[in-house]
């Protein structure tokens, strides 16, 4: 069985579910459970959101013993500084990959994106932190630009590449083709959304096609129809992958966290 790893983003993408918000104590309790059950990496929040977010981020960092803690950032130096100051183990930088995001949302050019990415990576390197690169909306992006971004990311020292199906339109077949075409000299992480009900299947296929990390959330919470559901992924992948997480232990933690998450 192939060894694979879970990146849990309940506290970042999961908490972005409209209507959900966690208090400091709740965030720490969720992180503690994730750490205990053996999640490799915990995306603990977006420190750039401000003082309050930083406070819970710092507490999570000092509470977790095994999991590495990721700080999520837009491609902005101020965001990255906030993550560094909160003590994040991994600084994740989310770069726009699709034309829709680059042109219509950020109103930038591809060259600007690449330049800004370099500045961000420099700042992370000078702080001596691990840098992981996220490609937002990669599933709808131009494949050539995705390659350019990855090449740049590798040059800049990124250790992991997050391939995001931001709006959840992938099928397993498309996911297989996309992941298999990515370079081999960087760890691949897949981030799947459930808009067409295929987040679990796409994650399974992505892992089979060469990804090492899969992003999940407890109960599959997240924007719109949610992210890949951790329990469902463990169930579906049980015959093929080792995640180092016990399904019964996860269920036990989930049942005790249920009232915290769905108030």
């Amino acid at each position, binding site marked *: 069985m192939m060894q694979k790893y879970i990146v849990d983003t309940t506290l970042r993408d999961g908490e972005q579910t409209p209507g959900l918000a966690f208090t400091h104590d709740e965030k720490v309790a969720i992180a503690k459970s994730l750490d205990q059950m053996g999640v490799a990496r915990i995306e603990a929040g977006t420190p750039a959101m401000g003082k309050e977010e930083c406070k819970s981020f710092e507490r999570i960092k000092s509470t977790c013993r095994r999991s590495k803690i990721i700080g999520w950032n837009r491609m902005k130096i101020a965001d990255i500084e906030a993550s560094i100051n909160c003590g994040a183990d991994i600084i994740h930088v989310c770069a726009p990959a699709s034309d829709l995001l680059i042109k219509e949302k950020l109103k930038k050019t591809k060259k600007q994106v690449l330049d800004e990415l370099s500045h961000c990576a420099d700042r992370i390197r000078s702080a001596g932190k691990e840098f992981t690169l996220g490609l937002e909306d990669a599933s709808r992006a131009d494949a050539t630009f995705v390659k350019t971004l990855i090449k740049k990311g590798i040059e800049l020292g990124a250790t992991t590449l997050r391939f995001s199906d931001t709006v*959840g339109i992938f099928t397993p077949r498309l996911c297989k083709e996309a992941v298999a075409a990515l370079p081999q000299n960087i760890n691949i992480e897949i981030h799947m959304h459930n808009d067409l*009900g295929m987040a679990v299947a796409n994650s399974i296929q992505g892992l089979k096609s060469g990804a090492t990390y899969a992003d999940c959330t407890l109960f599959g919470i997240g924007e719109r129809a949610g992210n890949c559901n951790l329990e469902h992924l463990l169930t579906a992948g049980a015959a*093929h992958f080792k995640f180092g997480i016990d399904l019964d232990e996860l269920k036990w933690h989930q049942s005790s966290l249920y009232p915290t998450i769905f108030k």
Partner: protein
Amino acid sequence: MITIIDRTMGHVNTSHAGREALSTFFTSLFKSGVTHIEGTPALFFRVFPELAHKFKGLSTIPSCLLSLDHYQNLSLNENPYQQFDISKDQQPDTEGSCSLTGISDLLATDELVYFMDLFQTSPFALNFCPDNRLHCGTALAMEWITLGGQSVSASFTGIGQMAPLEEVLMSLTYHCPDKFEGDLSNLQTAKKAFLDFSQALIPANKPVLGEQIFKVESGIHVDGILKNPAIYEPFDPQIVGQEREIVLGKHSGQKSIDHKLKSYQLSDSCLKRMLQTIRERCSQLGRNLSDLELANLVMEVQNDAKIYC
């Protein structure tokens, strides 16, 4: 065109279901692109009494398929499909039409290829009814169609551990528009009728049907949605009979506040103050503010502004 068989009726207790709810459900499914609905003749005769006379010869058979004929009239036929459960290791009966069940593992798709080959050489119809026990039902249905499959079964919301029908229909709309036609805005009507007769619960984040799936809160997403909804939406909510809504909460950004509170005509400094206060309150409460709480907060901030500015 793909044949889509709805098998919801095999998994709900319809003995107390009202005729009207069932009839609305069936009609909305046909409008959404379902080609056949599986059920017992007794059920269809109860819902559409006019069929009882026309198709009385079918009254003793266990399973029927309801469909629309060329003139858009309801038509009833004996269900030709023999169920073949691959997990029970039977030999498929290639002499008749066959519905393949018992496949739940996406990584074992070699089986799909095997059956596709087997049946491509036979003149009989092959339907695939994926099992959703491993949460891959929709994906399996889509794999089957990509391999050349012409017919799939599913159930509304995935009841009975089948591929969720609404997900299959939306995936076909998105990925195979040349093989599928249906107006999915009717799924909302189907959902209401389904809730009426099934007593099932549909989670707020259920793909396609959930009431929460087109709400946006986070500043990053709201910013994108206001510029062009396609940036953070997989498809236009109206396709599935829904609407987008911007809600305020812990993850709101300034643009969400400016947009949502436009009608209050607050000053820039008040709007900034609102963002800060909403974020703080939602973090402390661990939830979003109700409309009433929000209106009170606007009043508080307006009053403060009058006193101090």
